[in-house]
């Protein structure tokens, strides 16, 4: 008798829960979402029309192959790569690095095995990847801003408010190359530390990755941080190349 009663109670509770769940079903898309989409479209169109009325699309003189433009700037979204040209040769900054960036971006979902933080802005449970992705993202933006607003003729540095005339503050800097052997040792240490330290300090992200993923993640990140390293070497220590070979220089 008592058993029957509890069973009945349980059944009732289950029914109630099911009903509550039904009530909690997702809301209909119509009309809220299409309305918001329409509003966004109208706002964007309005912004675009105001922008187009306010500013004319740039148009220079007719193209003249015999008259070189100085500076010849790439469109702004590629100017980051052009800015990196200061620090790396074209084969790397213009071809290999962008390819690595694209492939690296595509690889993110396969390298990030942390299941947390889906569908929410959750910084806490994804610290490592968040920090590194954001650093990369803002390095990209930073290179664009410098290239777009702070580079004048011959790609010399000018603050945005400075006139583009060389009044002598661009003293000719003699760049030097570092001896290959020293560079190779330094690079060896850089990569070795990059591989060993996360494991040594038992960082959480490193513990959760298998060997294959760990190697790819570390390699990609070390390559990414080579860019600011090279910027510092060039700007502060006037280093041109770390490695010189008859075929390519880095």
């Amino acid at each position, binding site marked *: 008798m008592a058993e029957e009663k509890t069973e009945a109670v349980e059944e009732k509770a289950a029914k109630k829960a099911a009903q509550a769940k039904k009530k909690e079903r997702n809301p209909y898309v119509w009309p809220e979402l299409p309305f918001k989409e329409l509003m966004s479209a109208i706002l964007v169109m309005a912004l675009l029309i105001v922008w187009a009325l306010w*500013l004319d699309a740039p148009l220079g003189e007719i193209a003249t192959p015999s008259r070189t433009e100085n500076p010849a700037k790439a469109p702004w979204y590629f100017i980051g790569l052009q800015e990196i040209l200061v620090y790396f040769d074209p084969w790397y900054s*213009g071809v290999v690095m962008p390819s690595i960036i694209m492939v690296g971006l595509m690889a993110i979902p396969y390298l990030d095995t942390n299941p947390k933080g889906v569908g929410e802005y959750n910084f806490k449970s994804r610290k490592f990847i968040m920090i590194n992705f954001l650093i990369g993202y803002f390095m990209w933006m930073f290179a664009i801003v410098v290239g777009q607003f702070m580079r004048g003729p011959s790609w010399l540095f000018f603050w945005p408010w400075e006139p583009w005339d060389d009044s002598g503050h661009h003293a000719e800097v003699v760049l030097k190359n570092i001896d290959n052997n020293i560079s190779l040792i330094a690079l060896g240490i850089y990569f070795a530390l990059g591989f060993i330290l996360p494991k040594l300090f038992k960082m959480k992200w490193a513990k959760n990755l298998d060997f294959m993923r760990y190697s790819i993640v570390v390699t990609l990140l070390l390559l990414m941080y080579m860019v600011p390293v090279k910027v510092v070497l060039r700007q502060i220590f006037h280093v041109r190349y770390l490695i010189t070979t008859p075929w390519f220089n880095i």
Partner: protein
Amino acid sequence: MSEKKSFTEKIMATQIWKSIFRHDFKDTPANRGKMIRSNVFLHLHPLRIPKHAMKIRFTWCMGGITFFLFLVECITGILLMFYYHPVVEYAYMDMKYLQFDVPFGQILRNIHRWGAHLMVMTVMLHMLRVFLTGSYKPPREFNWVIGVLLLTLTLLMSFTGYLLPWDQLAYWAITVGTNMGAATPFIGVEGPFSLVDKFSDVRFVLLGGTTVGANALLRFYVAHVIAIPAVVFVGCAIHFWRIRKDGGISRPL
């Protein structure tokens, strides 16, 4: 006494109206479903969606805005095509023609140009949003890959369009850009371990020559107005379809 029907009601009772719109517009749950299901454009949406997914705060609406801008670019681009000849003798003149002679020509070009810039920005922000919400995680990995490809294609669309005005700005920007192609390892003439001469390397494929000229203009034009947009259209279709197939918009577990 017969009730007098309003004009609207009479229209809505005709066979023509009913053949186009399959249901009435009373705000009932059934009709809310039908609004989405019976419309080919709206049926990209599911009938129901988690509440958080409708919040601009969550999505920034950046994917939608990017697609909207793509459509704006298509429409303004088609209109511009009526006035533009992709040949060296005319290209720059057509810009001047648009500026001074074509009714609304300048604003048409302005919208196309600034819209393209805006689209590159929104696509970057869309990627940032998807990253920050962890929306690339399983089972949505492959849709992120398609997204990165679409980002690349957006950049290429913008880049190929950059040459078309045929002014100094365009000419030298594309010269700088395509010279990178010559620096490609193995298959660029100036790259490390080059295996090719300057008539068979990457830059030659891009330009149809060794320098930016008439062939380059034509190649960039064709890539800009049909080749890349066609791929982008297909890419978008897969991208949107997979959102649904990969479990809908991402949500907290």
